[in-house]
């Protein structure tokens, strides 16, 4: 049985359309023109225990709206959600006991309280058993390096310290399902790495189900085996991360550096010239049709090559390609 079961989920916002200027504002006050905006449309997916799913899409695609419906913050317009058998809206309290939520952009802790006080309060709200709390606190203090900030109020913490504090507060009641909405936004590489390791480790030791939205594909590559891509409120891809990579990974590029200025070059079939400057040439080729050595040979016969590098496609360029070419989703065989 899936842990998270989303069926035909939809959310439509109704906003008031305003014309510009004072006249428009007054008109909107007395004769409001409503405009319906579909944020999420007919969404279906199931997530099993222990999965870490990357939920990605461009800004405004409907990621946060989905997470807010899953956590019980927003009421869906259509469809149903079940998280560990609970309806997040109708059984808000029962659902809240099972879940942990991090919103990367805002804090769930008390601005003026020292971290340890905030954590005590959270533990009280979730009724964490005192001896268990002690155990977890010392564990988190170690892996998230909280010792030096336990007595610091949230307001005087750096962004990285704040996020470590948030994670401790989110996991202190040992949630079975965790939603992370951009947990690494604005953080430096070191903190990002520590946070990823923490999530991965927690997922492995507790079999926690994790749903993660992010714009940092490093998060996805290191944490997620499955990816759901949402575009304009609809699901456009749901499948293993590898499938995207394999499908789009059939293209590779080779960059050649030459000793002499390049005048012209004839490329073998299944190759495409990407960048050409005086002393360098970048070639993209389909590796199912031609091998890297064949391409290199063909080029080296024509040019005086000093050096060349073979580039594996990275996830970032693949996703960028997908975002820019929505039809490309069909190529990877969207599931669902």
């Amino acid at each position, binding site marked *: 049985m899936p842990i998270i079961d989303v069926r035909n989920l939809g959310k439509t*916002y109704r906003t008031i359309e305003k014309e510009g200027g004072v006249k428009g504002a007054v008109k909107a006050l007395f004769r409001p023109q409503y405009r319906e905006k579909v944020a999420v449309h007919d969404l279906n997916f199931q997530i099993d225990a222990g999965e870490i799913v990357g939920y990605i899409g461009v800004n405004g695609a409907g990621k*946060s709206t989905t997470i*807010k419906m899953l*956590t*019980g*913050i*927003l*009421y869906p317009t259509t469809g149903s959600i079940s998280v560990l058998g609970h309806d997040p809206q109708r059984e*808000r*309290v*029962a659902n*809240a*006991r099972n*879940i942990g*939520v991090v*919103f990367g*952009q*805002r804090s*769930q802790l*008390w601005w*003026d*309280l020292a971290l340890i*006080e905030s954590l005590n*309060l959270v533990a*009280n*709200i*979730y*009724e964490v058993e005192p001896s268990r709390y002690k155990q977890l606190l010392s564990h988190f203090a170690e892996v998230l390096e909280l010792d030096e900030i336990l007595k610091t109020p949230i307001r005087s913490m750096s962004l990285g310290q704040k996020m470590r504090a948030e994670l401790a507060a989110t996991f202190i009641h040992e949630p079975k399902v965790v939603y992370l909405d951009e947990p690494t936004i604005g953080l430096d590489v070191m903190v990002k790495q520590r946070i990823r390791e923490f999530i991965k480790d927690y997922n492995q030791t507790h079999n926690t189900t994790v749903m993660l939205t992010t714009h940092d594909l490093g998060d996805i590559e290191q944490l997620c085996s499955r990816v759901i891509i949402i575009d304009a409120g609809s699901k456009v891809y749901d499948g293993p991360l590898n499938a995207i990579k394999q499908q789009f990974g059939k293209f590779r590029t080779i960059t050649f550096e030459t000793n002499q200025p390049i005048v012209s070059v004839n490329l073998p079939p299944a190759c495409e010239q990407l960048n050409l400057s005086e002393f360098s040439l970048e070639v993209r080729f389909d590796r199912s049709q031609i091998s890297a050595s064949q391409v290199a040979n063909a080029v080296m016969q024509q040019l005086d090559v000093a050096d060349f590098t073979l580039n594996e496609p990275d996830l970032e360029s693949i996703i960028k390609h997908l975002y820019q070419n929505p039809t490309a989703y069909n190529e990877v065989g969207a599931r669902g």
Partner: protein
Amino acid sequence: MLRYTKLYWYFVIQRFKILMEYRLNFFIGSISTVLFQGASLVALWAVLRQVPSIQGWTFEQILLIYGLLTLSKGINHLFADNLWVVGRDYIRPGQFDRFLVRPINPLFHLLADRICHDAIGDFIVGLSLVSYAMVQLQLPINLTSIGFIILMVISGGVIFIALNLITAATSFWIMDSIAVTNVVFHTNEFAQYPLTFYHRSIGMVLTWLIPYGFASYYPASYLLGHEIGWMAWLAPVVALVCITIAYKGWLLGLRNYGSTGS
């Protein structure tokens, strides 16, 4: 219930720790409430010393009404002050979301998040006025009258909270409800005086629509032995009806909650 009581107490302790960090704020808050109340009283006294009584009401009798209202207001001030700023401080900046993902009632969480110690000023002023008036008017001070006053102050406090709750719930639609709450809340100033001072319609409004009259005029009338005093016994019922309707409005607002972007 026990759980919520314990949790509430825990919130209070945390709040106190924050207050101690801003000690100056703590004292300014309490003192300013006393000063604020004091200023209104001086104005009242300045008017009433010119005449022995207005429509048969003496200065001390009006003080009794005023004092009872202040005590009820104090209950609202102490427990439910966050209702004023739910739009500005929680909904607009997106802070309200965290209340909705925790395993406790979101309204409880909102109220417990900030109990307002400034209310101490209301209680000092209210208690002084009621005791002074009762002594001057030679009203009996015994278990029965004290019990009656406690019941009335609690009912009045609940009426105040209910009216602020239903106006605060408009935040879910219009983001910031301070203006709406202000309009309704300030009609309580009519209830500082006997309702008979005003046109009948105003008396009706303050009894049946915005029933602040039950926090002041009716209980005071009962204590003074006036005929209309029996109405005071309706106060607990009115309070219960108001808070039920207000909570339903609040729940409706929650359903309509749109959160903020990102």
